């Protein structure tokens, strides 16, 4: 077993709100500089930039988990990741069906393009990606479970677009792989206010929209090897795989302290 640095919340050029500098090559280079072992590509409501980055990651020994940061009907943001390209593509078809047709205005919201390895534009998403899907958080979580993916409510402590802001609390019947805390969290204060979080595996990621943010906060996991399946096991605390600590803007929090 070895410790791996994991940052599962990185936006790319495809997200309207992310910088156009967030191209595949820049993301990979910055991830390596930050000594990350596993990154997650999570654009708003789209998986279309994942495959290129995943292939480029393979060439340099960086594991890239492929998924999206979905926005549910209640406007709760959740990270989703999938174990292979077939499942990712099926989830993309699901997103295409459930993303309402609101045309993007790039001047207002930003560009929504995806690119190849050399940064040539492969396509542009016409529909605004930041709107809420027409399905509830329960329905999306069921779809993700059917595809054996990871389902992680994002930045749960944030005052907007979080499960807490929109729905008050995490309903006990909703199966999640873990919960993501934002980099601005005050863990002690948050846990005393929302004790339900003690039963969930906690992660911290960068939520990077600009290259310099990649790896600014990350999670350390103990794994056999850096793969999707191993991350899944770590989130479930199975057979020795687990979250060791959270690194939040340079400050380290051991997971035993967080669990207490």
């Amino acid at each position, binding site marked *: 077993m070895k410790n791996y640095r994991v940052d599962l919340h990185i936006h790319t050029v495809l997200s309207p709100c992310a910088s156009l500098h967030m191209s595949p090559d820049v993301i990979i280079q910055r991830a390596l500089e930050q000594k990350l072992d596993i990154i997650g590509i999570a654009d708003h409501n789209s998986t279309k930039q994942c495959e290129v980055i995943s292939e480029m990651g393979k060439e340099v020994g960086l594991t890239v988990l492929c998924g999206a940061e979905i926005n549910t009907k209640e406007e709760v943001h959740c990270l989703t990741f999938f174990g292979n390209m077939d499942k990712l593509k099926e989830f993309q078809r699901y997103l295409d069906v459930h993303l309402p047709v609101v045309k993007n205005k790039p001047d207002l919201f930003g560009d929504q393009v995806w690119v190849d390895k050399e940064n040539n534009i492969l396509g542009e998403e016409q529909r605004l990606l930041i709107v809420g899907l027409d399905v*509830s*958080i*329960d329905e999306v979580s069921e779809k993700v479970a059917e595809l054996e993916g990871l389902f992680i409510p994002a930045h749960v402590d944030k005052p907007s677009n979080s499960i*807490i802001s*929109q*729905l*008050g*609390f995490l*309903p006990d*019947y909703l199966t999640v792989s873990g919960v993501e805390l934002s980099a601005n969290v005050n863990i002690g204060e948050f846990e005393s206010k929302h004790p339900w979080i003690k039963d969930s595996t906690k992660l911290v990621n960068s939520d990077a929209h600009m290259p310099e943010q990649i790896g600014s906060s990350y999670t350390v996991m103990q794994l056999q090897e850096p793969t999707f399946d191993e991350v899944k096991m770590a989130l479930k605390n199975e057979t020795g795989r687990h979250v060791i600590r959270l690194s939040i803007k340079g400050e380290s929090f051991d997971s035993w302290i967080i669990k207490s």
Partner: protein
Amino acid sequence: MKVCDLVDKLDLKVFCGQQGINRLVDGAYVSDLLSDVMGNVDENNVWITLQTHKNIVAIASLKEVAAIILVKGHEPEQAALEQSNTEGIPILGTKLETFEIAGRLYALLNES
């Protein structure tokens, strides 16, 4: 005023939670952020929202809300409906938008 009076006077649909139809109403609160509702709604208020998730019933129960009104033709999700029947907190519906139903409810509560 009681929940059943609002149903009559505002032409509301009763989806579920029928057993709470005689609860007393002494005010209302409008919000779609459940974290905000949790902090600010008062007991015996009617809560106007477009959220349809099961969590609305949990929060209504916690805060002793008299009834929930869903706007714009929204319907409660199945899990919310079942929970409403268990808790006895009526979920009501209107085709009107929030602005309009809130205005009518305000006028109604002020004249009583």
